[in-house]
């Protein structure tokens, strides 16, 4: 039964790629050509990033603090830019622009969700996180709870999130490079996978940070430039732009109001919940707070990152509407069947070509490429630290391991994660990447956020409660996701889905909180008593950064 449907699935893919290939032979090869600016900028960025990696490797990645936290001496502005660089992924740059292009206002609903999660991190967890943790967010939960079970669960959650997130990034990367170089998709994915492996294993967090900062600056400059060029077409009047977009889009005025993305109230609220609470559960973002000197710099990081992200998403909205206004009906960017060349996720790249020809397209492609590399290396870094620090050194060997061995294991994990990401990236070629990200956020919101929040705010939290709450959040999110229309019907092809909503957060987040609290309250073990007693000291450290200095 399973084999049959999988074969059918493979058959469909083969058929689809044959059709695409036939199209490519007729006209696309000539039109795509080789874009020398794009290649030049790709190579320049790759060369610069490798020089950075060599520099970072020379400064040393031997100690845990250097490898995981870039030495812990970054300033707030540097880290803020790096957070922005870590967070604003190619999946959102390409995916949200594509979403706005296809559905108009719906893209804004996503964009707003990506943004509001950020202030929540600052209000609820940033300072305790900086004061209590060292390398991973699991440090926070393990501060007074039993280390082994907590780190095992947190480590597994991190790896699940990292892998899902990486899939979305790899798909974006593959399509982008495929479009620009005419390279086979899988080659593109392999190139990205190998580069991120080099950054993380040789340059650690320091190289990753500078790749992210460079990318953040490039990305914001690129989107600003494109927005200015779009608005210049319409006399710098946003209302002219919207008017034109409405007049040419097949859906007409429907695009300035909420539309098809949000099918029903439950889906809308569920997605909202995933986005606002999920950000505070993303391991690669939380990890960045350990690279700054103190809680004050952690705050500045969030302010810089939030400002950056606010501007960036506002610009994405202009880009999306610009794409509607300028590209609708333009045959140069459509294939024989009337579909966007390379898929709708490539619309931002086509828009750059329309606005500034091959030079701007080369620049924006290089920026998108840099964006992918920055995010995938941040994710790989988070995955490597979860595997090496939380799982290997702490959970399995109980800390009885030299720092050197731990770092070596983390680096090996980075290599393994990269290889896995390459394989998964190839398997998931035809998924909508913005939608995929919504699922990642649901897992982060359900499996990590409740435990992180309760461990700093609630005295009653126990190890058993945290572990079972987190596991039930993860399990519930994964099961509901599998049974949802997006996976059950679209990916697996099993027909109508047992679970009607695409995002499980509305159910899985409260469930995780409920289980955590219920199990904690009923936990009468000695361990639970100890955890409750340790809360006061942890609370003082969380607020002041003071530690008891006990040997």
């Amino acid at each position, binding site marked *: 039964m399973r084999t049959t449907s999988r074969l059918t699935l493979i058959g469909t893919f083969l058929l689809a790629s044959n059709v695409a290939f036939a199209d490519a032979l007729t006209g696309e090869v000539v039109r795509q050509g080789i874009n020398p600016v794009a290649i030049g900028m790709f190579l320049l960025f790759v060369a610069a990033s490798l020089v950075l990696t060599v520099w970072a490797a020379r400064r040393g990645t031997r100690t845990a603090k250097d490898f995981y936290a870039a030495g812990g001496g970054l300033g707030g502005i540097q880290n803020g830019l790096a957070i922005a660089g870590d967070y604003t992924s190619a999946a959102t740059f390409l995916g949200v622009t594509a979403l706005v292009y296809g559905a108009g206002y719906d893209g804004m609903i996503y964009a*707003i969700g990506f943004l509001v999660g950020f*202030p*929540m991190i600052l209000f609820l967890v940033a300072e305790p996180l900086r004061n209590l943790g060292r390398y991973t967010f699991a440090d926070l939960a393990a501060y007074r709870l039993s280390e082994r079970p907590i780190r095992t669960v947190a480590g597994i959650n991190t790896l699940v999130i990292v892998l899902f997130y990486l899939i979305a990034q790899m798909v974006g990367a593959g399509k982008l490079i495929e479009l620009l170089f005419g390279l086979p998709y899988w080659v593109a994915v392999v190139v990205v996978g190998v580069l991120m492996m080099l950054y993380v294993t040789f340059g650690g967090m320091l190289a990753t940070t500078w790749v992210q900062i460079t990318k953040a600056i490039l990305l914001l400059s690129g989107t600003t430039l494109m927005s200015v060029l779009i608005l210049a077409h319409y006399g710098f009047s946003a209302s002219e732009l919207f008017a034109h977009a409405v007049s040419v889009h097949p859906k007409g*005025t*429907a695009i300035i109001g909420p539309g098809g993305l949000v099918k029903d*109230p439950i889906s809308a609220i569920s997605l909202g919940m995933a986005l606002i609470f999920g950000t505070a559960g993303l391991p690669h973002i939380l990890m960045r707070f350990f690279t700054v000197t103190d809680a*004050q710099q952690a*705050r500045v990081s969030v302010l810089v990152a939030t400002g950056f992200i606010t501007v960036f998403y506002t610009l994405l909205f202009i880009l999306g509407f610009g794409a509607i206004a300028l590209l609708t009906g333009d045959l140069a960017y459509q294939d024989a069947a009337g579909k966007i060349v390379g898929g709708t996720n490539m619309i931002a790249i086509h828009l750059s070509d329309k606005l500034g020809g091959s030079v701007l397209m080369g620049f924006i492609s290089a920026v998108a490429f840099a964006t992918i590399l920055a995010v995938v290396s941040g994710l790989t870094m988070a995955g490597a630290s979860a595997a090496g620090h939380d799982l290997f050194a702490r959970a399995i060997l109980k800390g009885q391991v030299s720092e050197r061995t731990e770092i070596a294991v983390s680096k090996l994990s980075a290599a393994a994660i990269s290889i896995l990401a390459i394989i998964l990236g190839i398997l998931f070629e035809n998924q909508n990447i913005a939608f995929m990200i919504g699922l990642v956020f649901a897992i982060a919101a359900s499996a990590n956020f409740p435990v992180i929040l309760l461990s700093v705010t609630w005295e009653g939290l126990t190890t058993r409660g945290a572990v079972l709450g987190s596991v039930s959040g993860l399990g519930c999110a994964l099961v509901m996701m599998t049974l949802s229309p997006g996976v059950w019907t679209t990916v697996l092809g099993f027909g109508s889905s047992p679970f009607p909503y695409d995002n499980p957060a509305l159910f899985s987040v409260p469930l995780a909180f409920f289980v955590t609290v219920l199990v904690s309250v009923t936990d009468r073990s000695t361990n639970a008593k100890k955890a409750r007693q340790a809360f006061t*000291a942890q609370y003082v450290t969380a607020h002041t950064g003071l530690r008891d200095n006990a040997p």
Partner: protein
Amino acid sequence: MDTRPVDLDAIASRSDFRKLSAARNKLGNGLAVIMAAIYFTFICMVAFSPATLAQPIATGSSISVGIVVGVVVMASGFVLTAIYVFYASSRLDGMVKAVRETVQ
């Protein structure tokens, strides 16, 4: 680095620490509730009253109420963050410093 043991439990019951933690909790939780309220109000409008958001801001305009509301929601995220950072730097940091100085 000072390596004398610090009695954290003793600090916890001091009034200066209590003031500090209460002030920070009030600020953080308050702003988190405001942010969540703004956001979920927006999401509920999307969910239950999409027609309100789809209305043009003026007859004949192609800018909808939803676009304006969306920009306001985004801006509010930044403004709330700025309020936190400003208040924490001007008030809380001083209180943290005062607590730390008494033990170091």
